[in-house]
Every structure is written in structure tokens, then in C-alpha cells.
């Protein structure tokens, strides 16, 4: 139970994917104009990240490592992610049109989202992931990998929804034309990062 809590706190707050580890900045800045789209993107990313961990972790541990072809991981992972995103899109279209309407348009963007490839690379790096969630490197297993993927996605959703709220307010302010768009969004993100920094201090 303590381990479970540790993963949640670590993945969502202390090592938040967006504002602490700087993964998935493109959608964080690009799709955060309204809260609705931000939430849809967050949902889609969380979904894909969880499934990615569920698939890439066993493939790496039980296929690539025994065959001694770990160096192919980048190519294998990017293809798994691309195929997965394509399949999720088709499945959603067929079985759940409501869910497809909520997150369908964000799915094609996810293949080139660094947060997804990032989480796949992170959970196979045993030493690093173990220090992040406070377990022994040898105790790492697929359960932890999937949980970490899920809560890293939740952390991403939290950050992007916060950002969309801030940007909604900023849009109504008179801003210098050079600061409009990316610069002011970055400075808003700076304040979110400061807020998350508090968790690293305690």
C-alpha cells in the first residue's frame, strides 16, 4: 500500500512528467487553449501511456533482453506506439463513438508525443525508475511499470488542465504583441513549475 502511494505521489507530483521532467511539452503548449481540449488530450495520453507500458515492458524484458538485441529498443518502441495508437483509434471508432468524440482527434498527435516514448524508455531503465518510486531495482516488475505509466499520464493531465485554466485567464488580458502566444504560455508554465517544485522540497 505504501508502495502504491509512493508511485502516485512520485509520478503525479514530485516527478511530474511535464513540468519537472519536461516530457510532452508540445501538447502542453499546443493543446491547452481550452480546458475541454486539454482534458481530452490528457485522457488520450493517459490511456496510451498505460497501454504502452503494458506492452513495451514485457516485450523488452522477455524478448529483446534474452535475444541480446536491446539496442533495437528505440525502433521497436516507436513502432509499437504507432501501431497501438492506430489500433486504439480504430477500436474506439467502432466500439465507443462517445469516447472517440472525446479523445479521437488527439490520438494521431500522440505517436510523436515524447511523453509516451519517454515513459516506455523510463520504465525499462531499472536503476532510474527504482530510485524514482523508491523500490529495489530487482523488485521492478510489470505491475509497477503499468502503474507508473498510468499515474504519469494522470500527472500530465493535471498539468495540462491547470495550464488551460491559466491560459483562459491570460487571453483576456492586454499583452504586448511580442509576448503573446508561446512566451506568455512559457511564463505561465514557469509558475506551474514553481508550484510543483514544492513537492520536491518536502
Amino acid at each position, binding site marked *: 500500500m505504501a508502495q502504491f502511494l509512493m508511485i502516485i505521489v512520485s509520478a503525479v507530483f514530485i516527478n511530474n512528467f511535464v*513540468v*519537472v*521532467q*519536461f*516530457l*510532452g*511539452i*508540445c501538447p502542453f*503548449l499546443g493543446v491547452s487553449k481550452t480546458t475541454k481540449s486539454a482534458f481530452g488530450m490528457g485522457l488520450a495520453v493517459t490511456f496510451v501511456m498505460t497501454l504502452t507500458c503494458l506492452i513495451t515492458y514485457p516485450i523488452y524484458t522477455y524478448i529483446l533482453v534474452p535475444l541480446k538485441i536491446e*539496442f*533495437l*529498443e*528505440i*525502433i521497436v518502441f*516507436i*513502432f509499437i506506439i*504507432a501501431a497501438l495508437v492506430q489500433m486504439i483509434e480504430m477500436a474506439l471508432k467502432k466500439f465507443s463513438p462517445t469516447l472517440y468524440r472525446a479523445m479521437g482527434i488527439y490520438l494521431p498527435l500522440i*505517436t*510523436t*508525443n*515524447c511523453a509516451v*516514448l*519517454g515513459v516506455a*524508455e*523510463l520504465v525499462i*531503465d531499472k536503476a532510474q525508475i527504482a530510485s524514482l518510486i523508491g523500490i529495489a531495482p530487482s523488485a521492478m516488475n510489470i505491475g509497477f511499470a503499468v502503474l507508473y505509466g498510468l499515474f504519469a499520464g494522470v500527472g500530465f493531465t493535471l498539468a495540462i488542465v491547470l495550464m488551460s485554466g491559466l491560459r483562459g485567464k491570460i487571453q483576456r488580458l492586454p499583452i*504586448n504583441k*511580442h*509576448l503573446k502566444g*508561446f*512566451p*506568455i*504560455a*512559457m*511564463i505561465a*508554465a*514557469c*509558475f506551474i*513549475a*514553481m508550484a*510543483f*517544485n514544492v513537492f520536491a522540497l518536502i
Partner: protein
Amino acid sequence: MKTNVKKIAMDGVITQNPTFKLVLGTCPTLALTTAAMNGIYMGMAVIFVLICSNVLISLLRKIIPNQVRIPAFVLIIATFVTVVRLLLDYFLPDLNDVLGLYLPLIVVNCIILARAESFASKNTVLASALDGLFTGIGFMIGLTVLGLVREILGQGAAFGLKLWSFKIEFFSSPAGAFFTYGVFIALFSFISSLIEKKRKLKLYAKLIESKQQNNTETECE
């Protein structure tokens, strides 16, 4: 078709600077700019991948079918990133630790796919190689400048050399990364608008001059 080296160089480094103008590849930019040297290392890795992938994509641009071009590009890019990773693992293992997660993430770096899609798949091999080189240099300059500013302010050092003991911790933190980057994009946009204005004024002055000359000529007649 003649390759316009000057235009490609200007586009890659200044007018279409990937870091400050297009705001592409933001993840490594924010994460690795805690020190100026990181920018140079990352920049070199990106330059290598960009040149190689641009050249190969340009060579294969007539063979790759249009419908499957994106997966084909991604496969080519992933191959070269793997090559870089293996080379670094063997020759410079320390560097591999510095770049860490961001080295494999070059695959999903928007700059490389963007150059493949918008330039290499339409241009000759030589032009694509040059485009890769200069876009990579633009990226490297962006990262190094940001890294230098953050290193000087956050650690009181430049390129790893200690300058003074005064430091503002804020600039070393993630929040400082967002802040510095935001300010730099705004500055870049401000300076380029100033240059644009000056150029327009010069053009306007020239126009008036030529008009006056025309007038005097007609008067003489």
C-alpha cells in the same frame, strides 16, 4: 537547379530558427539547458541525425510511396538515433548519462520530422544535407545560448568554469527553464520585428528615391 546555400543557411540559423522562431523540440531545450556544454552535446547529436536522415530521405524520396512516408521517415530517424546511441555508448559513456532519456527522444523531436517532411522529401541530396546542417546549427546555438544564460545566472559558471559565487537558484530549477525560454522567444520576436521595420524603411526610401529620379528625368524631357 542551383543550390542556394546562403538562403538555406539564413533560414536554418536565423529566420526559421527551430528554437526561437518555430518553437520546435522544446522538451530537450527546456530539460538540458541547465549548462551551456549540454547544448553543444545535444546539438551535435541532433546535427548528426538531421544530416543523415535528411540525406537518406532525400535519396529515397522518389521510392517511398506517399501514403506510408511518415512511418518510413520515423524508421529512418529511429535507425540513426540508434546509431548515435551505440556510438556514444562506446566512445563517450559519460555523455550518454548527461543526455540520458533525451537521447532516444530525438526520434520524436519535431524538428527532424518537420525537416524531413517539408524539405528533404522535396529537395536534392546536397540541399537537404546543407539544410540539415544549418537547422542543426540553429538548434545548437539556441540551446547553447539558453544554457549559457541559465548557467551564468543559476550556477555562476560558464561552460563549466567557475566565474563567481553569486547565483540565483531559480534559474537552475525547472521554473527557471520555462521563464528563460519564454523571455528569449519574446526577445527574438522583438529584435526580428525591429530588423524587419528597418528593412522596410530602407526599401521605402529607395522607392521614393527612384520615383524622384524618374520625375526629374521626365522633367528634363
